[in-house]
């Protein structure tokens, strides 16, 4: 019964989204206001249907209705309620349904916010959104249908144990989906601008907002994914250049580039085609990422089972690429630049350089990620590209970006004289020296860490000087202030990644009950090994007393969790976090009978700052979303002679 209702809702959503897309494109062609209104209604109807279908699935999960195929696949009576709710996105079919649900919410909100504005573009934008919606509804209806009727079983297996193992599993996927799916909205707007052959100044604002919101979610999601890996996987790191991690980073890079080129577009009226290309690439990379993570071409916690969904997504990706490229080729010369570049050594020149680096970075990671896929497809051999490739390529480009993050905002817009440039670029060298020497004093010797510290110090001084001025006039320059908040957080992220990845200390420790071992400044005492029964799992845990410099600090309980329906146990590390760094214990093997345990003890300086700084990045992004009052955002070139010290009047944000 429930399954039938779900199937009906999905089939209806296929019809509504397809119909709405046709109406949207037609209304765009015929400039009919009635057509636009009708397309808007179809958009809302699609949202209602997706919300209803998702509600039906959650109801089936919570009531353990094992006659629904998806519930029989991932449900279990023994899992806690939060796991049951989150089961919606714990396996393939449910996660695509969840995708459709979020796409519905985005489309409804975007349609509502533009209901009376931008009439020139909106019919085509709605057409593009609903075309994407139609594809995902088709996926849910056919190759990934979660609403099949099956003979009810008494109890299901529950979701993947790795996903049950940590509360972050509830948070990371929704954020990632909000980021990934949300990129459909700016894609639709950008395509609409191309179809119209115009990108007017007033349309830049919604384009930027539509890009910024999913960017915020994606930023947080990438961090949550790394944090989850750190808290759950037990190897003590947060980033391994795993294909699924890269899949989330790639669209983030192009979206970040687009957020920068939009600033130049808004101010100077140039880079229209370029910005649109970046936005389209962002969307295409989210679809590529979905293909890589969901089709089973890479094995990970994200690729659930081999399924027929892969080729379907690939076809959609190909269609979207052809559509985007064709549209660009046909219309890009119609987008007239309204201004031009005066000088390379200027704010806008650095924006261009920034964009170039972001694109190079994207290609670097993209090549390393898809290379094994191509080799396997062509030669049938299996391999992967190792971490050193990514590290050796990404670190120098990242360092250059960090350098630009200092130089760009220091330079004025437009033409400046040599002495002005000197006055702008020389003082922050002090900041570079301070951070460099601090790092050296505390034992940093890795050249890239020291370079990162120097560039970070340089950028930090520039950023702080910019932050200081607009804080006085926050209401007038909120966007710019928010931009520099994000920059400050980015600097913290770069510096802490530099330090935490090169100054880590790892030691393997074997202990029996009562035994003591020294790990750096820490000493750990094994208090005992015990077994603990929970409804859905059995934990074998080692209790350690942790002392630092002789002072008792805390008790850590790294463990092995054996889930009811799983064959193998899963290790879960335990972490003692301080401002200066983390002390991390991860069980390798454990024996309750002998009261003995082997653990990896890892000391990582400053690692916790990464999570905090990325949250600040997200908050800064949200702050930049709040609209400013009309007239506050002035555009056009500043007089070339404007004094560099008067930062606020220079305008523009990063």
């Amino acid at each position, binding site marked *: 019964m429930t399954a039938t209702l779900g199937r009906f809702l999905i089939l209806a959503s296929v019809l509504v989204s397809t119909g709405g897309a046709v109406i949207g494109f037609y209304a765009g062609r015929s400039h009919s206001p009635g057509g636009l209104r009708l397309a808007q209604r179809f958009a809302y109807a699609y949202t209602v249907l997706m919300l209803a279908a998702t509600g039906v699935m959650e109801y089936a999960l919570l009531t353990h209705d094992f006659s629904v195929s998806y519930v029989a696949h991932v449900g279990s009576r023994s899992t806690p309620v939060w796991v049951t709710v989150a089961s919606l996105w714990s396996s393939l079919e449910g996660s695509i349904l969840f995708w459709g649900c979020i796409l519905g919410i985005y489309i409804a909100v975007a349609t509502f916010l533009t209901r009376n504005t931008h009439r020139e573009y909106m019919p085509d934008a709605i057409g593009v959104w609903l075309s994407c919606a139609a594809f995902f509804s088709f996926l849910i209806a056919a190759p990934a249908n979660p609403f099949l009727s099956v003979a009810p079983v008494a109890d299901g*297996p529950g979701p*993947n*144990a*790795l996903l049950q193992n940590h509360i972050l599993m509830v948070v990371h996927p929704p954020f990632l989906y909000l980021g990934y799916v949300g990129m459909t909205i700016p894609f639709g707007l950008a395509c609409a601008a191309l179809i119209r052959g115009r990108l007017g100044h007033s349309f830049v604002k919604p384009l930027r907002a539509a890009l910024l919101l999913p960017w915020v979610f994606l930023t947080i999601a990438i961090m949550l994914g790394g944090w989850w*890996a750190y808290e759950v*996987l*037990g*190897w*003590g*790191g947060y980033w*391994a250049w*795993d294909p699924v991690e890269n899949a989330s980073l790639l669209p983030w890079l192009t979206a970040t580039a687009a957020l920068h080129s939009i600033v130049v577009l808004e101010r100077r009226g140039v880079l229209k085609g370029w910005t649109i290309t970046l936005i389209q690439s962002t969307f295409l990379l989210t679809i590529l990422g979905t293909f890589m993570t969901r089709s089973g071409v*890479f*094995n*990970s*916690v994200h690729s659930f*089972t081999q399924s027929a969904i892969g080729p379907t997504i690939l076809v959609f990706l190909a269609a979207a690429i052809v559509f985007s490229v064709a549209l660009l080729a046909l219309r890009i010369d119609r987008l007239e630049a309204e201004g*031009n*570049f*005066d*000088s*390379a050594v200027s704010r806008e020149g650095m924006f261009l350089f920034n964009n170039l680096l972001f694109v*190079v970075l994207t*290609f*670097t990671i993209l*090549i*390393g990620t898809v*290379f094994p896929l191509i080799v396997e497809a062509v030669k049938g*051999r*299996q*391999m*992967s*590209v*190792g*971490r*050193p*490739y990514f590290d*050796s*390529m990404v670190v120098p480009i990242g360092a250059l970006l960090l350098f630009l993050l200092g130089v760009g905002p220091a330079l004025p817009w437009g033409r400046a004289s040599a002495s002005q440039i000197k006055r702008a670029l020389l003082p922050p060298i002090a900041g570079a020296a301070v951070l460099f020497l601090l790092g050296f004093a505390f034992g940093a010797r890795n050249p890239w860490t020291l370079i990162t510290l120097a560039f970070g110090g340089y950028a930090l001084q520039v950023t702080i000087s910019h932050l200081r001025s607009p804080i006085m006039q926050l209401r007038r320059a909120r966007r710019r202030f928010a931009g520099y908040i994000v920059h400050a957080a980015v600097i913290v992220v770069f510096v802490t990644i530099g330090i935490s990845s090169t100054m880590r200390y790892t030691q*393997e420790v*074997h202990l029996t009950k009562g035994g003591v071992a020294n790990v750096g400044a820490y000493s750990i005492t094994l208090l005992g090994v015990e077994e603990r029964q929970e409804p859905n799992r059995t934990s074998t845990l080692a209790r350690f007393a942790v002392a630092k410099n002789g002072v008792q600090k805390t008790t850590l309980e790294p463990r*092995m969790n054996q889930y009811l*329906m*799983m*064959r*193998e*146990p899963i*290790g879960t590390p335990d972490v003692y976090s301080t401002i200066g760094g983390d002390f991390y214990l*991860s*069980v*390798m*093997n*454990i024996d309750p009978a002998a009261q003995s345990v*082997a653990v*990896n003890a890892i000391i990582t300086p400053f690692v916790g700052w990464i999570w905090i700084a990325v949250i600040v990045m997200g908050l800064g992004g949200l702050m930049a979303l709040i609209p400013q009052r009309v007239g506050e955002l002035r555009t056009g070139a500043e007089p070339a002679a404007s004094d560099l010290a008067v930062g606020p009047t220079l305008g523009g944000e990063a």
Partner: protein
Amino acid sequence: MTANVPVATESMRRRTRFFMIGALLVAGIAFAVIATSGINKNIIYYWTPKDLHSAGNKAYGATIRLGGMVVPGSVHTEQGSHLEFDVKDSSDIVHVKSSGAPPQMFRENVGVVVEGTMVPGGYFKSDRLMVSHNNEYRAPKKGHPVDRKELERMMKSTEGLKD
């Protein structure tokens, strides 16, 4: 840059554009060369013992993720942290020396993936060891043979491998 020059603006702009495209092209080719050589130096091969033997000298120094089954009776532990065992597939056997404590599920007859390389002593030196890990459900029978597909899936996975 050329906007203030009154003469030949159009041709100069064209020349600038030509120069820009040329520079981008050169930079793009340089980037492609650097990236491909970077990739070629850092390939991780997914091999079975048979693949490893047929690769001959290529196996020495290359980074390899070797998948197979732990041969019964071949496991030796030195000082609690150094591990030696043989890994086999249907036809070939490779001797493995692994550093670090064995993971919880390590035992005879289990599927493992080790990452490392062949060294001149004629054995496989590994610093990463992962036990075949089935994310699905509890196996129906105990001691059933290792699923080759599962090993392949695991070789592709980096999650769960310690760094």
